[in-house]
């Protein structure tokens, strides 16, 4: 890693001021776990990092709101994993975190970093997308709301400006919805996923009223599979319907090939795992 400067502002506003919309060598850092990997590999050589670690404490807290959760962007993944409020309102998040990375990383990594990195292999983005989460984004001109669904622009790319920060995430409570996330690895058990599938459904095996199905890792960004959702809604959920849903998902998604699998293979994984995830959601999590 080559030398750089570190600024440690004590407020979010100050942090935004220190960022530069036109200078990619100045970047915010949350836990640094993702950024450090790029810096160590020499892919990213910052001139200056703006640490968010000393900004207002409120951005590191989780609160239950009337209809769900408000999660500060600097909340660590470990705090998210352990939060009773999260477990109550959105148990899918709690379950997902168990197999997300490892304890040491979760102790440091932040929710903001997991989203802003735009890494399609991460587990939280598809889950938050399927849950219909939204973000509060702050910039020099104030704040704006952004659905997580609209955050990702491409492979490691988001729609955020270089001087915008994620301040908070808002997650609607599951309520009566059924949810599942499946992470498929093709290397060791603790590998990054070759495919992630998040499913949030309203209804039951007799008929699904609404569905959000999101794929990640096999795709260049977390992506909603709208034709699979459409195929699922309405009819009785049986093998025939699930096969249709799986086929729709497999056809709809666009894939990337890497050491974890070819495009053809990931397409087949998609076909199978969308089916399995829907079934798992309906059967309820163990």
């Amino acid at each position, binding site marked *: 890693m080559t030398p750089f400067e570190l600024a440690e502002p004590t407020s979010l506003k100050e942090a935004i001021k220190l960022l530069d919309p036109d200078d990619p060598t100045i970047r915010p850092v949350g836990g640094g776990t993702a950024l450090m990997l790029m810096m160590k590999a020499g892919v990213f050589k910052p001139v200056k990092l703006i640490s968010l670690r000393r900004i207002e404490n409120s951005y590191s807290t989780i609160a239950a709101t009337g209809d769900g959760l408000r999660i500060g962007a600097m909340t660590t993944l470990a705090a998210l994993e352990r939060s009773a409020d999260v477990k109550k309102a959105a148990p899918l998040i709690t379950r997902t975190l168990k197999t997300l990375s490892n304890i040491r990383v979760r102790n440091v990594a932040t929710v903001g970093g997991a989203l802003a990195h735009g890494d399609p292999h991460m587990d939280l983005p598809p889950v938050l997308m399927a849950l219909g989460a939204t973000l509060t984004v702050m910039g020099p001109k104030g704040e704006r709301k952004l659905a997580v669904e609209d955050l990702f622009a491409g492979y490691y790319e988001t729609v955020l400006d270089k001087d915008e920060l994620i301040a908070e995430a808002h997650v609607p409570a599951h309520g009566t919805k059924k949810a599942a996330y499946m992470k498929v690895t093709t290397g060791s058990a*603790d590998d990054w996923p070759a495919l992630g599938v998040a499913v949030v459904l309203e209804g039951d095996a007799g008929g699904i009223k609404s569905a959000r199905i999101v794929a990640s890792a096999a795709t260049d960004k977390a992506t909603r599979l709208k034709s699979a959702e459409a195929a699922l809604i309405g009819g009785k959920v049986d093998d025939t319907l699930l096969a249709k849903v799986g086929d729709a998902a497999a056809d709809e998604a666009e894939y990337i090939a890497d050491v974890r699998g070819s495009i053809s293979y990931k397409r087949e994984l998609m076909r199978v795992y969308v089916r399995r995830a829907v079934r798992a959601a309906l059967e309820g999590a163990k």
Partner: protein
Amino acid sequence: MATTTQDAAKVGAQVGRSVQRLESREKVTGRAEYTHTMRLPNMLHAKMFRSTVAHGRIKSIDTSAAKKVPGVLHVITIDDVMKVIPNPYYGPAFHDQPILAHEKVRFVGEPVAVVLAADPHVAEEAAQLITAEYEELPPVFDEVDALTSKVYVHDELKPAGTFADLKHLKDAKNTNMALDYRLRKGDVDKAFAGAAHVFEHEFKTQKVLHLSFEPHATIADYRDTGVTLYTASQGPSFVRTEIARLLGWPENKVRIKVPFLGSGYGSKLYIKLEALALALSMIARRPVKVALTFEEMFYQITKHPCTFRIKSGLDKDGRIVARKCEVFWNGGAYADIGPRVTQKSGLTATGPYEIDNVSIDSYALYTNVTPAGALRGFGVPQLVWAYEGHTDMIARALKMDPVAFRRKNLLREGRPHATGTILKDAATEKVLDKLVERMNWSQPFDNGSGTVKRGRGLGIAIKAVITPTTSVAIVNVSGDGSVTLYCGTSDMGQGSDTAMAQMVGEVLNIPTESVRVTPRDTDVTPYDMGTLGSRSLFHMGHAVQRAAEHARDQLKALAREVGEPENSNTPIRELFVKRYGMQAGNVIGTGVFKPDYVPPAPGTGLSDNVTAFWMISGAGAEVEVDTETGHVKVTRLVNVLDIGKAINPQVVESQISGAASMQIGFTMFEKMHLDGGQVTNASLADYKIPGFHDIPPMENITVDTYQSNGPFGAKGVGEVATFCVSPAIANAIDDAVGVRLMELPLNPETVFRAIRAKAGQPLGDE
């Protein structure tokens, strides 16, 4: 179970006891010192600039920008090296590897230039500013292509002269072949012509690597009067010889010290970073540390990928009458110890079977990728992968039970191996019997239904130890009666220090815990050929036993001299006091061991004494295959081994489970991905190794054997458990879903593609 200190106090029963490792305290407190984390005062750090092309002539290297970085002291290329070491080539079998790229680069990642600075970050930053221009040459990557390719990795071969069977390759041109080992027994062509069935298959293994958690590291401290190297090495004696040769110095001016070793598995053998560190310290006239990052290990040394064409002829009763083996070893850009791998494992390519007509050709080949060397098995796992797959395929085709087929052809104790050496202390039958029993092979097996299918499979293997090699040991009894052992075996985690101390304790009738084993330091530890190929416990064990016996005999003589009755209990200290009038003096026992050996005859490869001992193992696997995705879950792994007598049962158990688990990685998912010679997954994020969740339920069984020529009946155990894991799992997959995989790893996509191909719906190539 662990033993208590009460047990330890009991003398006379040191061998066969689960003594806690002598270095336990240092390791669990984090205070063990490894080269990679060591520092010397005034030390500089080195960072390398590496080749980005697989094969090319160096036109120019631009170091000007790097030199301008504040804090940079030197930027060094081969021209600078040659001012201090005029002939900068090194290697164990061939002197083919330049300290830095010389005229040509031969693989992506080859070191081309080095930056020295006191701050490693500065050196790293500067190294990134170096550029080089190459005239690119066509590369050769594949081992089979390499044999006939018109692309030559080396213009001329340079055998080191260490090994007699490489002499004919001296100055050879226009070839990529660094060794052609051949074995001929009987009349293969005639036997094939008369065979009732002939089967021919081609198996492949992928490029994988050791990834010891302490990456390679060396610190050189060169002075005009002598040089000291602190190095993560499995073979300090060899390093000393080679460094002395490069300097043109006598060996006594070269001191090699090996601190704790964060494992090696074969990656730290012979000479690795030592020559470079030496050259850098000579130039800087300061201590210099060369320490690889995790990523850089992908450019240091790997296992050999291998293509194995195996052909068998059978009579109508299912007896193998002829076998032809053609083995192509992908050695990478520099020979390292590849020629040894090619020959020493090549000679067992026909497996643990008795076959009258045999032909083996085993080729060490140069290619334009990271060099390959020994990795936990010295080539044998690659061979077993092929011959045990082949064996199962034949049994299936002949509709014979795979066990019955193996029994019919098994090479048994007292019978001649293909080389002509009679099999002795090699429990092929016991191992197979025990394996069959533990796998409940005679019971029907439920192959499952629905989308998850189950299967079982097994394999059995043989290895000859690298022979002949030499070990020397010294046992020093001090005036107070305390005992120190000096031996050059590098304890890289296999527990050799403890096992050697147990042997000393056994002979001298003292608790193992009281024996000190000195750290490796060639100024005090005598010669040892190297910690490799499961040779140490046998060879060094003998030397240690002899040294301890020598010391014991002298102590007895001392007792007689001072008038003690035979077998008196007088403490040793008192003997010294009586002899020297005070606590003073030493008794020094020395031991040397080199086994008998008859080199393979040129042309036929035959020898009636080709190995000091045989290693035998078997493995059985049960698997579940998800037919919708190709995911394979190993639900049971049974390892059965002939290891002779266990000197330390607890250490033996962890060697077995460790070796088998490592092979699980090589079997299921580990693979270096290469694109145009460029490694595309050089990190632990993309090159996955087994973790907690990847280790199957395992049963490890050692059959009751005694190595009659071994020290206390023992022989090596570090590698045997790797041999059969891969074919056992592939055979089980075949049993489950009826597909045969010919290439490792058996990752989900590979399995799934095979399932689809068999169903007539092959998956596309996208």
